[in-house]
C-alpha cells in the first residue's frame, strides 16, 4: 500500500505514494519503474496521501530521472499537501519537476 503504480491512457505512468515517503521505500520505488512501458511519455507522482517526506525521497525522485535519462519523459508531482509542497520548494524541485 505504500506505493501504487499504473499506466493510464497508455502514455502516463502514475505513481501514488502512501503516507510516508522516506528511505524505507528506496527499493520499492526503484522497482516501480523497472521495465517501464516504452509507450510512456509522462510520469506523474501523486503525493495526495503523503504527509511525511525526507531527503532520501528527494534522492529517489532525482535518481529516477537519472536512471530514465535516455527517455524523453516529462515529470509531474501532483496533489502535494502544503507541508510537502514546502519541502519540494526548499529543494528547488520545480526546476526539474512540474509541481501542481
Amino acid at each position, binding site marked *: 500500500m505504500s506505493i501504487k503504480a499504473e499506466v493510464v491512457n497508455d502514455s502516463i505512468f502514475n505513481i501514488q505514494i502512501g503516507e510516508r515517503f522516506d528511505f524505507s521505500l528506496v527499493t520499492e520505488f526503484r522497482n516501480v519503474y523497472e521495465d517501464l512501458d516504452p509507450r510512456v511519455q509522462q510520469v506523474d507522482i501523486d503525493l495526495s496521501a503523503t504527509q511525511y517526506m525526507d531527503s532520501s525521497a528527494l534522492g529517489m525522485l532525482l535518481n529516477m530521472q537519472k536512471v530514465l*535519462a535516455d527517455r524523453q519523459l516529462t515529470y509531474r508531482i501532483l496533489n502535494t499537501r502544503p507541508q510537502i509542497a514546502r519541502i519540494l520548494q526548499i529543494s528547488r524541485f520545480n526546476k526539474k519537476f512540474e509541481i501542481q
Partner: protein
Amino acid sequence: MVKILIVDDEEINRIMLREILSEAGYCNFIEAHNGQQAIETARQHKPDIVLLDVIMPGMSGIEAAPQIKASSPGCYMPILFITSLDDEQSLVKCLASGGDDFISKPFEKIILHAKVKAHERTRQLSLEIQEKNQSLTYFQLEVERNHRIVEHIFDNAIGRNPVTTDYFDFYTQPEAQFNGDLFLCEQSPSGGVYLFIGDFTGHGLASAIGAIPVAQLFTSMTLKGLAVGEMAARLNRLLVNLLPADMFCVASVLEIHANGKNFTLWSGGLPRLAVKTSEQEIRLLIDPQHMPLGILEEHEFDNQTQYFETEWGDTLLLYTDGLMESQHKELGMLGEAGVEKWFTRNSQVNAQLLVDKAELYRAGAAAEDDITIVLYKSRPFQFELPEPLAEPIPFNLSFHLTAQHIKDAQVIDQVVAIVNSIPGLAAIRSELFTVITELTNNAIEHGILGLSSDTKAEPEGFMEYYEQRRDRIAQLEKGDIWITVQRQMPDNVLEISMQDSGPGFDTAALKHCEDETFGRGFVLIRELCQSLHISDSGKQIKVIMPIEPVLDDADIPN
C-alpha cells in the same frame, strides 16, 4: 389457588354453595352477608370469582356489583349472580350492573361446576395478560429511561463546536430520534477543518451506538492533526473490532485547508460529492473510492485519499443516501443526478430546501432512511486561535539508541511518534518528522555506518548506497546515538540535538556538495530550522526549530 367470595344473606345458601364447590376441588372461600360487606371483603381479599346474591337486606347485589368489579381494575373478575328471579328485566339489570353470569336457585351441581370452571379459565387468561402488560410497561419505562441516558451521552459526546459549524449549512435529524447518521466537524491544528459524515447500517439506537466511539476517536485525531487517510484507517480499525459482521459505516472523511480551497477526501461509499461554481455549473463530481468503514481488515484497508481544489464562492455538497433514495410514485428514485439538478438549479440552495424538496418528491411519505446534508461555500476559515490554557512548560526529552535499536528499521518512526505525541507539537508534525528523520539518518549513515554520500552520485550508486546501508546495519555491533529534544521557553522553540559515537567527518566537505543529489537533507534542515550548529567534527548537530507553524499560503507553489 382460586379464591371464591360467596355473598348471600342466608347461611344455608352459603353452606350449600361451599359444599357443591368443594366437591369440584375448590377450597378457598371467603364470605359476606350483604353488599357493603362484599365490597370491603373484595377490596381486602382480592377474590378470583364472586358469587353474588341479588336481593339482600341493606345494599343489594345489583348496587354492590359495580364497586366489587372496581376492586379488580385491569383484570377480569367474574361476578355470578345467585338468583331465583327469571323475569327478563331483572336479568338485564344484573348484567348491566357488572354481572357476568347467573346461577339459578335451586342450585344444580353440574351447571354450577361448569360455569365456575369456565369463568375461572377466563380469569386465568386475564391474569396472565395483566402480568404481561405489567412487564411490558416496565420494559417500556426502562427503554425510555435508557434513551434519556443515551441521549444525554450523545449530546455530550457529539457536541458540535458552533465556531466551526458556522461555516457549514447542514441538516441532521434530531438527536432524540436516534439514527444511524453522524456528522462531525472539528477545527484542524493548522486552521482548517475536518469533517466526518457517516451512515451506519440499520436504524435506531442500535445503529446510533457506533457513533459515540467514532466521535470520540475523530475528535482526538483532529486535535493531533492526523492525515485524512490515517484517520480513515484508524476509524476502520475501531469499527472492524467493534461492530458485528453485518454492520458497517458508509462514510467520508474530508479535510479542508485553512484557505477553504484545498480538500483531501477519503470516501467510502457515500453518494458522490458535488462541487458547483458560483455560476451554478458543476465543477466536480467525485465518486467514492472505497468500501465502507468497518468491513476490511487492517491489511486489506486502502487509505488512499483524493485531492481536489475549488475556487472561493464554489459550493460543495455532501449527503447520505437517505436523500437520493427518496421515492416518487411514478418517477421512482431521485438518485444522485436528481439531487445534483436541485443543487445546481437553485442559486440559494441550502440543506433545508433539499429536505423540503425531497419531502414533496416523496409526496408526504416518510423517508426510508436517515438523511444528512452538508453544504459548504468555499471561503477561508478565520478561527481565533484558542488562547493556550497555560504557558507551555519547558521539557527535556532524551533518547539513547544503541546498536540493537539502530538495527531496527522502525527506530526513527518510534522516535518521531514519541516526540509528536507531545501536546502542542501537532501543528508542526510534518516538519518535525523531516528534521528528526534527517538528523537521525545522518547520524546513522555517516556517523555510525561511515557511508559516503559520494556513492550516490551515479544512478547505480544511489541504490548501491542503500544496499551498503543495509549490509552495514546488519553487521553493526557497536554504536550509540544520543538524541535530546528540549522545549525552550519563553522563545517557545525546540532544540534538537543529535550526537553519535562515530569517528566524525570533515565538515568542510559538506559545504560544496549541497547542490548535488546528497547534502539535500541539510538544505531542508536549514530551511525548516532557525539555526543549525555542527560541532565536534560533525559528531554533534544541534538545531533550533520554531514551534509555531511557519506555513502560509504564499509558500504553496501553484
